[in-house]
């Protein structure tokens, strides 16, 4: 309790520092997730239809996934330096596998009889996609996005190690100074953000879930 009060006092004594780190953290997360969505949603729709594309890209992101994020961060350094870009790219790579894999699976596992019925009734390809395939795939895609979001929120703290800011700054500083209160100034908001993302995405998912 004492520790929490200290942490709060620390944050309140430097509000502009705290809010800057906070906003930076959110911007990092949103940037990474947005880029991953823009790449992986169309890619997943394609890989679900093409065996060749599926083998190639799913394997590729799976390979990228096993590289630890911190390693990716440092691998980016020679190209983008100690910057926001490096951090955003590393986080994007982290966000891609769950989104791509779930999008691919969502479209691949659609019941072929449903697609056939839709065609047989005279829907054109675009209508089938919008009115039938997408609504049925959405819950599984959202699960992938939820996983990605939570992972990225937590991992964005690593950006501090290469000077890209975010709430990780307080964690790095706190551990350097062996000051747990400062560390919590970074850790608690990150934990809350991750929980909110989890809860929010679950609710969204339930709202689009097909009745079973």
């Amino acid at each position, binding site marked *: 309790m004492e520790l929490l009060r200290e942490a709060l006092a620390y944050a309140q004594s430097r509000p502009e520092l705290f809010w800057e780190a906070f906003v930076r953290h959110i911007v990092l997360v949103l940037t990474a997730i947005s880029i991953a969505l823009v790449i992986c949603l169309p890619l997943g729709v394609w890989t679900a239809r093409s065996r060749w594309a599926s083998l190639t890209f799913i394997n590729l992101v799976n390979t990228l996934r096993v590289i630890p994020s911190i390693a990716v961060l440092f691998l980016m350094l020679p190209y983008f330096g100690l910057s926001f870009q490096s951090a955003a790219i590393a986080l994007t790579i982290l966000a891609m596998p769950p989104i791509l894999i779930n999008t691919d699976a969502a479209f691949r596992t659609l019941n072929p009889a449903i697609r*056939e019925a*839709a065609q047989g009734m*005279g*829907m054109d390809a675009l209508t089938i996609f919008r009115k039938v395939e997408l*609504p049925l795939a959405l819950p599984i895609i959202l699960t992938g996005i939820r996983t990605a979001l939570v992972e990225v929120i937590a991992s964005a703290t690593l950006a501090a190690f290469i000077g890209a800011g975010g709430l990780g700054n307080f964690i790095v500083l706190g551990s350097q100074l062996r000051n747990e209160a400062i560390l919590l100034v970074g850790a608690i908001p990150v934990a809350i953000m991750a929980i909110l993302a989890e809860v929010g995405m679950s609710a969204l998912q339930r709202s689009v879930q097909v009745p079973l």
Partner: protein
Amino acid sequence: MAYIEFVNVSKQFPGALRPSVNNCSLAIEQGTFVVLLGLSGCGKTTLLKMVNRLHEPTSGHILIDGEDIRHLPVTALRQRIGYVIQQTGLFPHMTVAQNIAVVPKLLGWQRERIESRIDELLTLIELPPAEYRHRYPSQLSGGQQQRVGLARALAGDPEVMLMDEPFGAIDAITRATLQDEMIFLQRQLQKTILFVTHDVEEALRLADKIVVMDMGCIVQYDTPFRILTRPANQFVTNLVGADDTVRHLSLISVERAMQSPPPDFHVNGQPRIALHDNLRNALSLLLRTGTQTLVVAQDEHPVGILTMGQIQHLVGRVHEL
């Protein structure tokens, strides 16, 4: 003139060793209920799916109402053809009403017309609209799902219905009910129906005409009665059980076999059978009750008699009928 016409239609899938449908020609009259019957893999589904162009023939052509189906936009063609499949293909994220509304919406119907059509169809398939309109497919039994599939296919009031083993995955008792409903519906609607099954009893019950297929070819195209009594070859004989006397009886009506009562006949508690029933049920009744004579009744009034002797006599002459 024939309403649906297949002219030398063949279909060979890429990489297949032999055609799945081999030079089939077939003329189907408007308003007839035609059943495609044959062993698994003989090409029934392939033939059916060429009508709504889910498959394209490798050669030959198909006409509907005199028009080559390739001359129409494919979506427009399909909107004019009702399609029912065994797995129903109902959209699980749409309610019963929304499922039924799909084709009318594609056809650009007005909202009120669609709503009243939904109620009309649900009433027709005996699922009260108030209760079933807002259910999702997962909240229906298999038989109810299949009925909704049928209603959805009928929604745009198509002239042609394609039905691929619609009752194939349903228990025997429910299937018999659905078959009865189908017969009843067809009597009112008079659609041109192509119906695939490999259940011989189902084919005999439902069909005006049966197409017997074997290895991609049409072996015989005839009425159920003639398929049974004059099978084209040994394959048809074996497939439909043309040797099965009881099966023959199921296709002959009591009306056809009854006699007027002899002058000394008295109605006296004998078992009764309806004029429109078939001889198979009559025989069953005779055996069950251990009598020799049934009273044939129409609307409760006795109109004739049917004896065991007369049924035996008919069985001997069945090939002349």
